[in-house]
Structures are given as structure tokens and as C-alpha cells.
């Protein structure tokens, strides 16, 4: 699916890999030279071979030599690291900008024309800038094949940019620990030739209209795209949030403003649970984990979700 070894997957691969190889060369040289010397000395000067040690207290010239040489070498390493890194901080003005949002535990990419995806689609050979935003805790967007990583810190503006150099599909991971499903915060970057990308980009009709014949299918698609299923199971098992199996129509015990009460789950309750998740907390679950989706889901979206939930109560 993806390969690490594509030297032109992004414009940064070369800089990073060069600094890596330079440093690797130096450290392998030292590791092997010192280990070999050490082993040689141990054999050459073992007690049976050399019964009397010669007492040597030190040597100023040697101390100076092996202070200066490593100092020069580390400066060389620093230099390569720095020049490989510098361009990562300077995005071109005309870059194609995509808003990239991390939340527990999914990614969302919002394009300027209103398109929203959970996979990152980018055009080949064009500077792409990701404006990063974290909604809950710190996440980190990592594309190994591009040699790129940037933390998403809630409340802070961060960005990263790159020029994809080869058509293909590459892994995208979260590398800042963010809780239970940290390791499944995984999606891909799809690099397409400009013409194919344009075709994809212009097509803002909903994919879902194709599958509306199956009841709840559109709702299912919406909850998948919004990452609800990271916390809610469909099969009755308890994850971070309550399962949706049999949810619609059941009697639920919730805590409202510190008081326990019972209610029947209906459309209004679900609507409210999505807009104001912290107003009624389901007994046995934590407040503060589910964020409000007021700005992400329209009323029509929520109606579709409810249709989908109903299919789980049949």
C-alpha cells in the first residue's frame, strides 16, 4: 500500500534522508571503531597475555584531540539537521489550503469549497498546506512517507505543508498519545494527478444519494465519517460511550444536573445528546468526553442518523 522508500514522495524526503544518512554514517563509524578497539584491547591485554599493567595517567593532547574532533562532527550533524528542517517552516503563499481537524479519534479534512472527507486527498506536484486544529486533546499528524509530523495543540494555530511528488496512497497516523483509540486514529493520504483531483474536487454531490435505497445507509455513512463509531459500538459492547444497539425507544437512566432521572430515548433526546452532550449524562459514563457536534452536523444529518439508529432497534 505505501512504501517508505519512495525518494520523491514529498519535497522533504531528500533533506531528511540526507541528514539521516550523514549522521548514520558518522555514528556507525564510531560504534564500530570503538567497539573493535575495545575488543582488541581486551584480548591483547588480558591478564594471561600481559601480566603487568603499565600505569598511564592520561594525556592532555589526546584529551584535546578527542574533544575537538567530536565537536566538529556534531556541528556537521547539526548543520545537516537544520538545513533539512528549515524549509518545513516556510509554506509558499499560493499553497492549496486544507483545514485538518483532529479529535478523539478521527481525522477530518475540510476543503475550501465545503467538501469534507476523512481521507486526505491532495493534488500531485502542488504545494499543499494543512491548517491544523485539535478539538479536544493534543494529536499529532504524521505521514511517514513524506517525513512530516506536526502536533495539533488545542487552542493553538499550527500548520504543515508539503508538495506531493508521486501518485499513490500513503499512511497517515496520529503520533501523540490521545487515549483509548490512539492507535486507530489512522487514515491515508491519496495523491492524485491534477486533472483527476480537479474532477474529484468539483464533484460535491453527496456520494450517499447513490445508496439511499437501503434504510439508514446515509446515516451510517455520516456517523462513520464523523468518527462516532470510535466511541459508540453497534453491537451492544461498551466502548467509551454507550452502544447504539437497541438505543432508540429504550428507557435510559441519565444524570441531569446531578439528579438521576429516567426517560424514553426519542428523536428529541438524541438531537439534544448530539448538540449538548453534557446536559444529560448516561449513567455509568463520563461527562466531557463527547464534544458537541452542533457545528458539524445539520438537522438533516441528525435526522439521517436517527433513521440509522432506528434500524439498530429492530
Amino acid at each position, binding site marked *: 500500500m505505501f512504501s517508505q522508500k519512495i525518494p520523491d514522495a514529498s519535497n522533504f524526503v531528500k533533506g531528511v534522508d540526507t541528514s539521516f544518512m550523514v549522521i548514520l554514517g558518522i555514528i556507525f563509524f564510531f560504534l564500530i571503531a570503538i567497539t573493535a578497539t575495545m575488543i582488541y584491547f581486551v584480548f591483547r591485554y588480558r591478564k594471561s597475555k600481559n601480566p603487568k599493567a603499565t600505569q598511564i595517567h592520561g594525556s592532555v593532547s589526546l584529551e584535546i584531540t578527542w574533544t575537538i574532533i*567530536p565537536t566538529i562532527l556534531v556541528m556537521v550533524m*547539526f548543520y545537516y539537521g537544520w538545513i533539512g528542517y528549515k524549509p518545513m517552516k516556510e509554506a509558499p503563499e499560493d499553497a492549496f489550503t486544507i483545514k485538518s481537524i483532529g479529535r478523539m479519534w478521527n481525522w477530518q479534512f475540510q476543503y475550501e469549497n465545503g467538501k469534507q472527507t476523512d481521507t486526505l486527498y491532495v493534488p500531485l506536484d502542488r504545494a499543499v498546506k494543512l491548517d491544523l486544529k485539535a478539538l479536544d486533546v493534543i494529536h499529532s499528524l504524521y505521514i511517514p512517507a513524506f517525513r512530516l*509530523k506536526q502536533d495539533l495543540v488545542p487552542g*493553538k494555530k499550527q500548520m504543515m505543508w508539503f508538495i506531493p511528488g508521486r501518485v499513490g496512497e500513503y499512511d497517515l497516523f496520529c503520533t501523540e*498519545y490521545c487515549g483509548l483509540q490512539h492507535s486507530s486514529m489512522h487514515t491515508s493520504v491519496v495523491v492524485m494527478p491534477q486533472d483527476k483531483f480537479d474532477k474529484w474536487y468539483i464533484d460535491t454531490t453527496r456520494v450517499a444519494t447513490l445508496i439511499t435505497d437501503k434504510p439508514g445507509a446515509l446515516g451510517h455513512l455520516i456517523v462513520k465519517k464523523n468518527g462516532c463509531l470510535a466511541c459508540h459500538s453497534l453491537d451492544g459492547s461498551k466502548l467509551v460511550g454507550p452502544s447504539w444497539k437497541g438505543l432508540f425507544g429504550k428507557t435510559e437512566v441519565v444524570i441531569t444536573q446531578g439528579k438521576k432521572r429516567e426517560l424514553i430515548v426519542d428523536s428529541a433526546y438524541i438531537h439534544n445528546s448530539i448538540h449538548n452532550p453534557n446536559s444529560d449524562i448516561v449513567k455509568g459514563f463520563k461527562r466531557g468526553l463527547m464534544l458537541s457536534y452542533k457545528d458539524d452536523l445539520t438537522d438533516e444529518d441528525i435526522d439521517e442518523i436517527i433513521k440509522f439508529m432506528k434500524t439498530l432497534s429492530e
Partner: protein
Amino acid sequence: MSETVLQHNQVSYLEYQGRFKGLFAWIFSTDHKRIGLLYLYSMLVLFSVAATLGLLMKIELIAPGKTIMDAQTYNSFFTLHGITMIFLIVVPGLPAVFGNFFLPIMIGAKDVAFPKLNLLSWWIYILGALVVLSSQFIGDGPPDTGWTFYAPYSFRTGTNMLPAVTGAFILGFSSIATGLNFIVTIHRMRAPGMAWMKMPLFPWALYGTAWIQVLATPIVGVTLLMIVLERTLQIGFFDPALGGDPILYQHLFWIYSHPAVYIMILPAMGVISEIIPTFARKTIFGYKAIVVSTLAIAFVGYFVWGHHMFTSGMSGTALYTFSILTFLVAIPSAIKIFNWVATLHKASIDIQTPFLWALCFLFVFMIGGLSGMVLGALSANVHLHDTAFVVAHFHFIVFGGTGFAFFGALHYWYPKMFGRMYDKGWANIGLAIFFTGFNTLYLPMFYLGMIGMPRRYYDYVEEFHGPNIVSSFGAMLMIAGLIIIITNLIRSARKGEIAEADPWKGKTLEWSIASPPTLENFDEIPVVTKQPYDYE
């Protein structure tokens, strides 16, 4: 009066009967040697627990998806593993066990400056450990934040992270008390004639370490306290939801935790500087250079914390500075390596178990340090930060460095501490298995990081499967080696051959007294006239 003194001085510290009997004769003893052993036993238990957690994690990672535990359990395992290993074992480890036992003896003193404070530090340590462990059993489930407690996740999680933080806070006091005690002891209690430049290198390393403990620990104390206040009183320091700054937390955390790496590694270097001359029958090469590097590491180590945060969005100048400083702090370590290897030149080497540990230390420590060069370079860091590469790097440094030195020290000073010798054959077999397992476990993790496997991952894509299998197999091998090593040591404490006072023909003061030492160490305080490693 002279009669009682004589009596005190004839029985060993192990047999001495004071005011208390049985267990109480230990847990209320202010003898620095008994306190050293108290720490040793406590840490052995904690290490076994934490290593078992590590092994279970590696078994979980042998295949993608769920193998033996669910994600929540995995997350709480690496949290408890990290907290225990760092705060309860490697940070206090060498100073608390071998520093307590040997610092006074090596500088020719009868005890540390404040024996009661010393016992109190152990009690605080135990209290801290119990509070940390209690987080596993009380409240809403074991903490799952990782040992770094990064905000704001540590405020979001529903698990019981407060006891873990409070425990780490309490442990800080133990660390400060020990550090203070050592500084005063070294300044005031050196035997007549032991000028600073005649002091052995292990006490020197403890001296550098003690200053970091005293100066850096309060910072983490304050930081942890701020978390407690934020979580209980909703004061916004770090959580953006309350108007705080999560990056501030990272700065405060690493301002302590990076120097903490040197708290772990300096005493380890001190141990190696003792073992090598003894078995080389040769004075150490470049004594002064080693002393100066020790102090340089302790000092420069304060200014490199930012290298843990290269991808969190700092300014260009900050990045630049932290990267340069990180490279510079490597130089004193390199100087030490060169001096140790040079000591072997024209030596007359007696190849014994402690010496083999020192050689293995040099090898793994070099890998750890050199892989740190890769991480210090900004561009490579962006790719490798928070991947398995980092996990491999710090296990090579911390486990390879401090852990190997700890076992080396144990095999070196064992005959002095217990008056008996372990089975050398088994000790070497254990080491060989352990060393092979160690490398099989951690080397593949460098590769995994290079191909992009993030750390703290319960599950991974198929691409990463192969190296993970090798690594998990290495973990099993390594644990097998550890079991052999530890069993041999425990068994020999009672059944081993009686050891001589100076089995390795060492020259530092601890080898001039009885094995095991008497209560007051020296019949008469020695007068020091020579350099510490004088084999003329």
C-alpha cells in the same frame, strides 16, 4: 565504653543487634548500609512488576489487533510501567542503593551526614510507591496517560490519575532529601587527606547527581502540584478549556525530566569508572577529564529540555538553540567513553563478571547515545519523534545505561555487601542470554521507528508485523536472562561461597575493610595519601 565499641566493630552490619529485632531492625535502622539494602529489595520487587508489564506489552504487540489484552489495559500498562521504571527505579536507583551503601565507605566515613533523614527518605519513598500503586486499585480504573501526564489529556481522562501524580510528587521529597544528604556528606565527611581530586569517581558522580536532584526536583514537584490543583479546583494552568496552555506544561515537565535523565546516567558512569580500573589493574585514564565531564553534563543537561518538543510548534530560534545544545551535551559523554577505552590500553585485564557487564554497558550505551545524535538533528527528529525509534533510544540509554550499570554494580559490590560470592558461571550465562535478548528486543524498534511506527500503539498496520515478532521474541529471551541473573543472586546471598575482603583486588577504600562491613565500617578512620586508583 571501649568494650562496646569493640563489640560493635566486630559483628557485621548484617548480624548486628540493635534496639529492635527482626524486620524492625531493618525498617527502623539508620545504618546507611541497611538503608541501601532496603532500597535494593524494594526496587527488586518493583522492577519485577514493571518488567512483567513490559513483557506482557511485548506479547500483546506480537501480532496486530487484540492478542492478550484490550486497548485500555495496554494503555494503563505502559503508564504504570513507565512511572514505575522512571520514578521508582532508575531515577532513585543507583544513588539510593549503592550511593547509600558505598558513598560513606568510599570517602572513609562511618555514615552519611544525616542518618535519620536518610531513613526518612526511604519511608517517603515507600509512601510514594504505595500511593502510585494505589492508583491501580482505587477510583475509576488505572491511569492511562503515559508517564508524561501530558495536558490536556491528563485532565480529560476518566481514569484515576491523581494518585499517580501525587505519588510522583511525594517521591520528589525523597529524592531531594537523599541529594542534600549526599552533598553535605561529601563536603564535610571525607577522610583526612582525601582532597577533592583524590576522591574516587563514583562519589564524584553522586556529587554531580545530588546537585541536579536538589535543584531540578522542585520544578517537577511544583508542576505535579499544579496538575493536582487544576484537576481538583479547576484552576486553569494547562488545560485550554480552562484558559491554560498545554505547551507550558510540556516545558515545565521536561525542564525537570531531561535533567532527570542525567540523574539516571551520571551515577551509572560513576560505577563504570570504578569497575574498569579494578579489573584492568590500572589507574583510570584521564581522571580529571572524567571529573570535568561529569560536572559539564550536570550543568549543560539543564538547557536541552526543548529537544523533546521539536514538533510541538516552538519558534525557530528556540529549535535551533536546543538542537545545538543537545549536540554539545553529547561531547562530555563521548570523552568519558574514550577515557574508559584508553584505560584498557596496556592494562592487565582480569575478565570477570562485573567487567563483562561494564563492556556490555559501553556497547549499549554507545548505541543509545549515538542514536540520540539522530534525534538531536532537527530534520530527522521530525520524522522519528514519538515513534518506536524513540522508545528504542531511551531503552538503550536508560535500561542499557543505568540498568546495565546497576547490575554491573550489583555483581561488583555483591561480595562486599553480603560477604558471599555468587556463582560466576551462572552469572555469565545469564548475562549472555540477557544481552542477546536485550538487543533482539530493542534493535528492531529502531527500524520500526524508521519505517514510521508511532509509539504507544496498541495496534498497528500489517507493514510493521515482521520486526515486532522479532522484538517480542527478544523480550522473552531477555526476561529469561533476567530470571537467571536474579535467581543466582538471591540464592547466593545465603548459599554462596564465603568471599574475601578484597576478591577483585580493588584499591578504593571499600576493599580495605571486612566483607560484609562492620557496623561502623572502619575500626579507625583511614588517612588517605594516594590517588584512588593507585596500582603502582
